[in-house]
């Protein structure tokens, strides 16, 4: 009797174990950035929803696979969020990422190189559509070349979206003050930087604060756009000689910029650098009071309530909001070129530079490898980004311009497509140029200069110390050599 009972018990245990194995479920966590299917609120009455459908379809096709979409907190920076989740080994398997950030962070082994995966067929892309035979073919080479990390020889990001930033302007307000608000794609709203300063000065004389923007070090991106694009104009003639050998046109990576400093190819003591600092200082009086601690939302509110005529923002994702909220005629322009009229050290290039570009993509994180579910994660990755799915996501909520072949640009974003024709700025935001420490200290130094706490001489001395130190540190940390740069 006892033996029989024992046998039955063993049978139950073995059956239970097999059933358990059969029902072993996989949960894939993913962030989808601006496409997170939020609940509607007063401020956001029409949030994107399509990702819910995509997830439901995929789960229905793959029993046992659960997809959890994660919303990223908006009260801390993306950098802080990533360092927290990665160090806690609690990162999602797929995260939205900017390739420049990935370049900076790839030394931490946070991201899985996608080189082999993008060579595989993507079964979710219909036959005859680029990418079906080879996933990489879904996206133009120019995008892959931009995001390729020469330092490691790896491709970490599948960049599905392009974005551009620009100046939103209130046409009614400008015309009421006798200012011509005609935008021409060939020369932006202004022919050059000096004209922009003059026209914003006229707005200021009419009693308005001209430009709503944010230089809060917590959300510094708006200021960073001026910083990188204007610095590019001063050094564009030299950039190609700073690239690593064999590289095609790209924004300078950390190593190239750090080596340029170490090799004396760029210095805060250059006349051009001093001119650049002065150019920004001359622009600063046009910014709204309190810009140093203002959040972007606060800046947006000033524009939308008609208190200021200009707003610097993301010309893709914010266009939806401006369309919804503005009760005046408005337009979007981009940065004017910086010519000799503005500075004798400017490159006298008639073109402005694109801020943004192919900056919005997805990465697979090391968690997929740790948990041994890379294949499952990449499968969902392929499904989500394949044209039939991604096209629906972007159409449902046009927040950026899709890069994949075969997808149309949503109507709302068509005016900004022309921005993508501009040459990309070679010098990015301060943080990806060199390091986050540099970016943070550089912004604080600029704030000290703008608010009169330090003079130009001190600023240059401090910048020189900061650039030299950070270049030395990042070169040492990464064990880079700099002998590839020859002027």
């Amino acid at each position, binding site marked *: 009797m006892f033996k029989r009972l024992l046998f039955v018990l063993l049978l139950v245990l073995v059956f239970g174990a097999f059933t358990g194995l059969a029902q072993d479920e996989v949960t894939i966590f993913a962030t989808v950035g601006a496409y997170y299917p939020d609940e509607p609120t007063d401020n956001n009455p029409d949030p994107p929803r399509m990702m819910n459908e995509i997830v439901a379809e995929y789960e229905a096709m793959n029993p046992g696979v659960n997809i959890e979409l994660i919303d990223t907190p908006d009260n*801390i*920076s993306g*950098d*802080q969020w990533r*360092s*927290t989740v*990665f*160090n806690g080994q609690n990162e999602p398997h797929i995260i939205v990422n900017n390739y420049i950030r990935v370049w900076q962070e790839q030394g*931490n*082994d946070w991201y899985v190189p996608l080189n082999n995966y993008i060579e595989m067929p993507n079964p979710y892309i219909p036959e005859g559509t680029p990418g079906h035979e080879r996933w990489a073919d879904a996206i133009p080479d120019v995008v892959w070349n931009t995001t390729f990390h020469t330092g490691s020889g790896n491709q970490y990001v599948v960049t599905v979206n392009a974005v551009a930033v620009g100046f939103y302007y209130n046409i009614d307000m400008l015309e009421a003050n006798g200012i011509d608000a005609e935008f021409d794609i060939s020369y932006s709203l202004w022919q050059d930087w000096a004209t922009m300063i003059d026209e914003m000065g006229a707005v200021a004389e009419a009693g308005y*604060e001209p430009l709503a923007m944010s230089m*809060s*070090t*917590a959300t510094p991106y708006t200021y960073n756009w001026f910083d990188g694009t204007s610095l590019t104009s001063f050094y564009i003639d030299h950039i190609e000689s700073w690239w690593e050998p064999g590289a095609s046109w790209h924004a300078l990576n950390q190593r190239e910029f750090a080596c340029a400093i170490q090799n004396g190819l760029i210095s805060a003591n250059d006349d051009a650098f001093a001119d650049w600092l002065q150019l920004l200082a001359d622009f600063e009086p046009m910014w*709204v*009071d*309190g*810009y*140093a*601690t*203002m959040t972007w939302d*606060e800046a947006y*509110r*000033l524009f939308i309530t008609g*208190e200021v005529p200009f707003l610097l923002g993301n010309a893709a994702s914010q266009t939806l909001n401006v369309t919804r909220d503005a009760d005046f005629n408005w337009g979007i322009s981009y940065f004017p070129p910086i010519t000799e009229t503005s500075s004798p050290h400017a490159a006298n290039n008639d073109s402005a530079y694109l801020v943004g570009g192919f900056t919005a993509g997805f990465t697979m994180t090391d968690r997929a490898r740790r948990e041994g579910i890379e294949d499952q994660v990449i499968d969902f990755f392929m499904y989500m980004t394949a044209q039939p799915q991604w096209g629906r996501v972007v159409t449902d909520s046009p927040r950026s311009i899709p890069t994949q072949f075969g997808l149309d640009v949503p109507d709302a974003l068509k005016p900004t497509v022309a921005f993508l024709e501009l040459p990309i700025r070679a010098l990015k935001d301060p943080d990806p140029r060199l*390091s*986050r*420490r540099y970016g*943070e*200290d550089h912004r*604080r*130094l600029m*704030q*000290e200069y*703008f*608010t009169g*706490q330090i003079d130009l001489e001190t600023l240059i001395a401090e910048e020189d110390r900061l650039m030299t130190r950070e270049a030395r540190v990042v070169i040492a940390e990464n064990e880079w050599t700099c002998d590839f740069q020859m002027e």
Partner: protein
Amino acid sequence: MFRSATRSSSYSLLHSRAPLPRRLWRAKWLYLALLVPVTLLLLFEWLPAFSALYNSLYIWNGGKVHIYVGLEHYERLLSDRTFRVALSNLVGFVIFRVVMQTVLPFFAAEMIINLRSARWSYWWKIIFVFPMVVPTILNYLIWRFIYNPQVGLLNEGLELLGLDAYTHAWLGDPLTAMWALSFVRFPWLPTLQFLIILGGLQTIPHEVHESASIDGAGFWRRLFYIDIPMTRRQITLAMILTMLFMTQRFDLFLVMTDGGPGYSTMVPALQLFQSAFSFLEFGYASAIGVVLFVGMLALTVINLRVSSGAAAG
């Protein structure tokens, strides 16, 4: 009845003349009950504190990079301009807040003690304690709105009074930013400090105040010769707590200004946070934490010594 029986039983256990092992055995449940909180304290308070000391000797990015560098981070702190500025900002901020958060709660408590109506006294206590339930972050966001240069209450109020010339970007100007942060939570009546001081004042026997009145002592004489000396321990505790809270405070600076403009509102706790979570320099952040800990400990000891010396004198 029950309470006094329990007290007498614990007392007899701990103070009987039996040998130590027997006494320990007798009180085993007491010690076992203590074991849980002590273990949790060790795990979640002491271990992280000591690991900060250990990590401060390493370059650590929170991940795989863990390189021993000895006292290098402490040397770097000595020449770190940000840390110097942050420390000097902190000193001013802490002094201001310690004074305000001790003096004003003291007067609030005095006011309640002197009320003749028990009902009014009760309601005033409720009013002073109520802010405790308002989430701190909400408070900061309200103050951010108050200071908003374009639509904030402060500037709007000044304009209403015809004082347009005094409107200002309060948080955006390095000359006013730290003052603006110091005024956050005006009128500085923190509940805990208020209750501590109120508790102290309530322990002063009525007879002492009555005798003083008979001797003709007015409010100020009573304040300086009876109330302050007799609540010295509570005042010291309130000051120490304020000092500790304010030194460790970084949320205020993070939410309101992120340490800007420039470094004008940077404090060591915020620098610690940024070093760790923005720059992944956990070793350096640990060194800042250790220095802060040592500083706070030293100030607490000095404060206690001074106050106990004064009390003895």
